[in-house]
């Protein structure tokens, strides 16, 4: 379980808090979607969840982040990364840039943890098979499509062995087929018991993978509830969140004078 307890965070030199009194809980096997307009604090919340803010990026934090009831503040970074993994939007910058094959790339993170070689190999094999990308193992990561690179990056996170995964716009730079690969991967991870926090502008993806939705504005949670209901809420558009295509289609049809009951 990943828990935020009254978390407030200010960037270094920031006057206003970027995250303001946020409390949130992610259960085992639960996928929570996080949406909000630009500058609402989504990415900052991801960095906080992964322990990168404030310890790497600076700033000040009050409140607590707990992993399975344990405060992450005193945990060394290398212990934390084995429990909470974070993925970013750009697949290219997430790759280490120093490996010649996908297999080595996926092994890069767990190898940093200094585990026995046998365990390393079994983790890499498991991560590749969990995302169904074993066939890419011998390929050069630099020469894969964006979607495949993002899957390799996620496999690299999984091989660290975390139970909690934070994905900050994992499909921002991907085409529909790449987006679909990532959506499959998220569903698979959740089915294996991982809790996943997904930030996305593409609400179609959120509608597909998330059961619960959290809406952020000005660093504060302004709406929270079942994803299917909230994504159809017209107030989301005012908060800078694009509605899923199914909701948009329904709204346009209604605006054109068609009966929603008949449509249903």
């Amino acid at each position, binding site marked *: 379980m990943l828990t935020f307890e009254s978390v407030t965070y200010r960037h270094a030199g920031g006057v206003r808090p970027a995250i303001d009194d946020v409390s949130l809980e992610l259960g085992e096997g639960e996928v929570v979607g996080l949406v909000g307009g630009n500058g609402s604090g989504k990415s900052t919340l991801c*960095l906080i969840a*992964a322990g*990168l803010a404030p310890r*790497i*990026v600076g700033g000040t934090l009050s409140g607590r982040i707990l992993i399975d009831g344990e405060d992450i503040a005193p945990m*060394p*970074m*290398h212990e934390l*990364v*084995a429990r909470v*993994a*974070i993925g*970013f939007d*750009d697949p*290219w*910058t*997430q790759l*280490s*840039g*120093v*490996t*010649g094959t996908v*297999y*080595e790339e996926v*092994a*890069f*993170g*767990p*190898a*940093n*943890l*200094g*585990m*026995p*070689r046998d365990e*390393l*190999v079994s983790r890499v094999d498991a991560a590749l098979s969990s995302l169904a990308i074993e066939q890419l193992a011998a390929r050069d990561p*630099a020469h894969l499509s964006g979607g495949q690179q993002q899957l390799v*990056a996620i496999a*690299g*996170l999984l091989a*660290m062995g975390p139970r909690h995964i934070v994905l900050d716009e994992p499909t921002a730079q991907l085409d529909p087929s790449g987006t679909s690969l990532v959506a499959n991967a998220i569903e698979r991870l959740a089915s294996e018991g991982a809790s996943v926090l997904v930030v996305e502008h593409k609400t179609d993806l959120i509608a597909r993978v998330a059961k619960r939705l959290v809406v952020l504005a000005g660093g504060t949670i302004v709406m929270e509830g079942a994803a299917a209901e909230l994504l159809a809420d017209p107030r989301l558009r005012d908060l800078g969140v694009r509605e899923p295509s199914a909701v948009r289609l329904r709204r346009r049809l209604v605006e054109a004078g068609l009966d929603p009951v008949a449509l249903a």
Partner: protein
Amino acid sequence: MVGPLALAGLVVLLPAAVARVVRKLLRATLLLTLPVATSVLVINVLFFPGGRDVLFQAGPVTATREGLGLAIEVLLRLLVISGAISLFYLTTSAAELTTDLERRGVSPRLAFVANASVQSVPAMLERAAAIIEAQRARGLDTEGGPLARARGIVPIVGPVILGAIGEVEQRTLALEARGFSRPGPRTLLWHPADRPIERAARWLIVAALVALLAARALGWHPA
């Protein structure tokens, strides 16, 4: 001149021929040494002090045979040095090198930096090629005379450098998220093969170096 020539043949060209990279090696070496070689040639041929055997005279400058001799010797030395470096990069896999360095106790961070700096060159070239295409699509003239080309460099270099700097922040976070800053040794997935012939070659190089230093100390100097 005999010394550098023998070295060029034995240490650079012969191994390059065995590795079948002579053509690539010559191109890389010539490109690397061209700017320095040009200045070495001009300065030594035209301004060698005490040169007596005049080749030609043009106004205040006099080209001498002694200057030309020295220029050729320095050039050969330069070619041997840059040729050896080029040969190393053409025949050694960066991943194998850094893995082996780590196995021998070099810090993983140092090995990563060494590896990343080599691997980032092709990535940078790819990025530059993509930016050139994008700028061309917006009407940038990257062809034509030297002046037009020079003008075209500015809108390409800016995005390449800024893009690379922009990547650094996210790459740093991504590395941190993968346990890169953990102290202590990393697990090595594999060990590069170290064949007996490679070990023998390494010892031969050390022995040759010692022998050459000893010969020089005893007063031996090839003509």
